[in-house]
């Protein structure tokens, strides 16, 4: 893992994964798995199924990275959530949790314990807001808002990660808040 891993963008982590740095994919997993899990749990209402789907989603992302590498410069969240959504739909179609990617990669089934389920439910509660936001905001605004409001990071640091100026980050955060206000107003 390179020394700059903490501030690497998702796109850079994917590039490094393709270049043979497997730890980069581990970093991406740690960074994004809670979002994917919350997204799936919200739709399945079943922690075990959501965890199973999440494992398939990340396996499918590896397969996609090998077969059809995406062009991602910033956040991989939209890409991962699209794979998660497709995995979910395919699972409904087949009447069982999709496992094609894990079969292809010869991954073992992972045991799920009671502690895992409890943790998923706790994480879901914390990240449900984020999953909601992911559906309402464009990816650039979501990343900016998350980094600034949820992660409480500085504009300059966020700007370096997102490869833009601090002014652009401020504008994205502002637009995100404005979008959410309008959405909430329309909802009420």
């Amino acid at each position: 893992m390179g020394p700059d891993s903490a501030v690497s963008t998702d796109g850079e982590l994917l590039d490094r994964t393709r270049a043979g740095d497997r730890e980069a994919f581990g970093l991406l997993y740690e960074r994004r798995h809670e979002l994917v899990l919350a997204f799936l749990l919200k739709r399945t209402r079943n922690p075990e199924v959501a965890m199973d789907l999440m494992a398939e989603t990340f396996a499918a992302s590896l397969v996609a990275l090998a077969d059809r590498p995406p062009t991602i410069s910033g956040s991989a969240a939209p890409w991962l959530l699209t794979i998660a959504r497709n995995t979910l739909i395919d699972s409904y179609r087949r009447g069982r949790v999709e496992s094609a990617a894990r079969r292809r990669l010869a991954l073992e089934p992972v045991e799920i314990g009671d502690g895992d389920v409890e943790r998923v439910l706790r994480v879901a509660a914390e990240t449900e807001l984020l999953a909601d936001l992911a559906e309402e905001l464009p990816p650039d605004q979501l990343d900016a808002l998350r980094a600034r409001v949820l992660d409480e990071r500085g504009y300059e640091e966020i700007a370096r990660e997102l490869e833009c100026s601090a002014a652009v980050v401020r504008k994205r955060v502002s637009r995100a808040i404005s979008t959410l206000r309008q959405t909430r107003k329309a909802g009420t």
Partner: protein
Amino acid sequence: MSDFHHDCKQQLLTAAGTLFHSVEAQAPIQRHSRRLPVLAAVAIGALLLAAAAFAASQIIGVGASVKPFGGSERSSLSTGVGVPLPGSHRRLRSASSPAMSVPDPLGGLPWGMRIVTTTRGLLCVQVGRLRDGLLGVLGQDGRFKNDGLFHELPPGALDQSTCSQRDLFTLYRASGPSALSTLPGEVRSCSVRSSRRAGAAGQPVCPARDERLIAFGLLGPHAVSVSYRAGNRLHTVATSGSHGAYLIVLPPSAWQASASEDFSAANLTPSEGLPAGVLRAYLLSRVVFRDGNHRCQAGPELQIGGPPICGASMTGAPSIPSRGARRSPVALLARKRAGGYALTLAFTAPAAVHDANTAYGAEYTLEGAAPCEPGGAGQPIERDIKPGQRVQVTMFVNQKPGCHGVIHGRIVLGRQGSALSGPTYDKRTVGRFSFALP
């Protein structure tokens, strides 16, 4: 990090390292569990059935041919799995035909396998006994009223569950032929011994000497060999022909030696909800493919120190209809039905479907809180379609009591994962629709 996430992440790291040839990825490949489907996505099948062991020298009379297999999907030249192409299947010249013929492990008539190409571009597999160069089934265990005669299996008696796409893309990524059904025409009067259903419903258990474990499949032109465990030994056999076919017939002892509840479960049929992959994963341990000038391996029991795990490079790029296909407006008509709504969707097809490799389908997601179901898909449109043709399909949307929300749906065109499975890969959205569940 919990154990689940730790284990999940470690497996992904190992896979990433293997997939992208990481120098850090030389961790030993573990011998994988056989409890769940972990075999790489290749087209294989296995079935456990009762098949009486006639002595090969015994004179067996000939009865009526097997009638075309009845199924839910009616096939024609341009619908369903299609019908056999004339001359697409070779007549097996003799019982010892070297192509796809294996001896019966208990001395009965040899077993044969035929590959049939259909008008919709599928490859279907027929497996049965060989007698005088003909493929057929025996009137035993309830079939053909136990007449003991040999009944020829004509190419037209196709079981759609044994059909799969012939292109490499689907072959390597999809499930392939499930081959979970019993032989065509078979209505058994007894249950196989290893089945959990054995003895159920007053049905007697088949004699052990009448049971066989059969595995067969098509692995494509790059396949080199398949390996399987029997009697605690690993056996390897070469695949045959341009379709990479294999056929394995084992005596009951092959599974009784390692009898487990798991294998018993594998004898269930798809209608009972068991993934086809479970059954497949139980017999084949490893498949070796040729990848350019190298060899690679796939399966639940990878050889440590053996060839690398197979990648996607050998499958080539898919030839899905152009991404530039124009979007089509979707007309929607909703009718209230018990338990939900029947949505009739009509659209103009922007691209052709000329075989069963691709299909149009409708799917949706539902934005609504519990108890709403989050999404679903309609029956795929399994027929040839011309560009510009008006297409209509009906999809049922289940509405649980108390569920209200907006359905966001789309018409997609994509590759089918297996025969008649609907668009699964490389899906292109050709139209969108929405409907508010009142």
